[in-house]
């Protein structure tokens, strides 16, 4: 009797896998902490510094506002132009990487691979390379943002194109449309709203990115971080940060509202 009862209770699943995962994570963390020289003692030693910096950041130097307005407008201009360049270049890339537009795998796999490659390179690196080519100023920043947003917009758009309804495509083929008419009247109406929404989304990302591109000399408000932190003027730094946050939040809000209207 006793034995039967014991068999009724199911055995708890083995916890070995959990223990292994746990140990693996601990090892990873320990290795990473060792590699980066991160220790708690250093963090605690840094605490007084931290508070003195924060103390100097408050109150912000409001008078500095006048000096950075022009740079902030430049940042937004860079984001607008960079997004536009990206949006235009992204169209052919999106069409050539959608499997229902181009039937040949020899075309869309290489194009997709190229897009993946572009998206692995952080925009700040692109900006640093373009600064080396074109010299200091907003121009390299605009190009970096353009290439960076091409990757995002093209990827999202080609996924939207692959999800469209086949009906209009077939009927355009049936009435004998050429390739351009085929795209204009059966693909564009179906993906236009998505495309515009993705462009706005990448504009939001680009505004944030443009705010820091100045750190490598690619124009915009980022240059002022270098200037003020170099002289330890933390009150001015906090003015720049607050201004940036304000602009980003406002642009995010407008863009989100527009996107909600579109879709």
């Amino acid at each position, binding site marked *: 009797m006793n034995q039967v009862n014991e068999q009724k209770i199911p055995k708890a699943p083995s916890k070995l896998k959990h223990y292994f995962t746990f140990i693996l994570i601990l090892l990873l963390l320990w290795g990473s902490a060792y*590699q980066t020289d*991160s220790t708690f003692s250093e963090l605690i030693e840094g605490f007084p510094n931290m508070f003195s910096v924060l103390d100097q950041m408050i109150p912000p130097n409001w008078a500095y506002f006048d000096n950075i307005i022009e740079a902030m407008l430049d940042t937004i201009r860079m984001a*607008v132009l960079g997004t536009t360049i990206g949006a235009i270049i992204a169209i052919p890339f999106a069409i050539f990487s959608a499997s229902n537009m181009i039937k040949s795998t020899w075309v869309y796999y290489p194009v997709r691979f190229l897009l993946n490659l572009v998206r*692995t390179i952080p925009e700040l690196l692109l900006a*640093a390379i373009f600064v*080396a080519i*074109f*010299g200091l100023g907003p121009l390299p920043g605009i190009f970096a943002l353009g290439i960076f947003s091409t990757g995002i917009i093209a990827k999202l758009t080609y996924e939207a194109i692959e999800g469209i309804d086949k009906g209009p495509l077939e009927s355009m083929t049936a009435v004998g449309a050429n390739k351009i008419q085929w795209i204009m009247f059966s693909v564009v109406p179906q993906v236009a709203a998505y495309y515009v929404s993705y462009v706005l989304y990448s504009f939001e990302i680009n505004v944030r990115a443009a705010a820091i591109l100045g750190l490598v000399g690619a124009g915009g408000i980022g240059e002022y971080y270098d200037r003020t932190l170099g002289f330890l003027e933390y009150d001015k730094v906090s003015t720049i940060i607050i201004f940036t946050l304000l602009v980003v939040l406002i642009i995010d809000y407008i863009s989100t509202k527009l996107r909600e209207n579109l879709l």
Partner: protein
Amino acid sequence: MSSATRPIKPKKNIVRRWVIFIALALLYIWALSGVPIEGFKETAGQISKAIVSGIFSPDWDYVYLPEGEDLLRGLLDTLAIAILGTFISAFLCIPFAFWAANNMSKFKANAGIGKFFLSFVRTFPELVMALLFIKMVGPGSFAGVLALGLHSIGMLGKLFSEEVENIDFGPSEALKATGARPLQTLWFAVFPQVLPGFISYTLYRFEINLRSASVLGIIGAGGIGTPLIFAMQSRDWSRVGIILLGIIVMVTIVDIISGYLRKKIV
């Protein structure tokens, strides 16, 4: 006859289209007027040629140098910064996630404040955070770890809180009915529901953090970015080429592994 049967285009659409068109035109006039485009530097063509040839003939010797400061160690450093930064933020953001979740507090304003705080952290650029941490703990990887750890709270907290908002209250009510303490309810009813989502988002953020970690070095916060910016300043393009190649390969491999794990978990 045939023209009369054609439907008339709706007028409202045309007006709206013109308004959008004019607004866009004004935006571009404003944007283009501000950017000084004073032509390219004469050396631009030469330098781009040097960069392209450098990228296609990478400096393979740099991959491993016995005395240190080579590509592999730089990449390992970058990876370590990303792992540690992601772990710190995944840990720290849990209380914020519960704070910002609508269904966890009785007052909606409370969750609203939490959400606002998280979006504030999200918009704070991580590079600026790294710059501030460099002033606090000195230049090096540790500043990068802290910057990533703090910055990622913003996004992870938001994603985690959405996961918390989607939980089913059945299991926790059942546990309460059996007389479980609040901590036990949290551990046995809430955590099992949100854990897969948490892990998946953490892996996703890890992918993003790896990309960020590779540029943190540009401002002196450790990782592969530091040798990269030095190589760029000394115009050593074949070294720039190998470092770029290294970053691309590492990011791609990590993306594939992390994507596989995420698919398995969800």
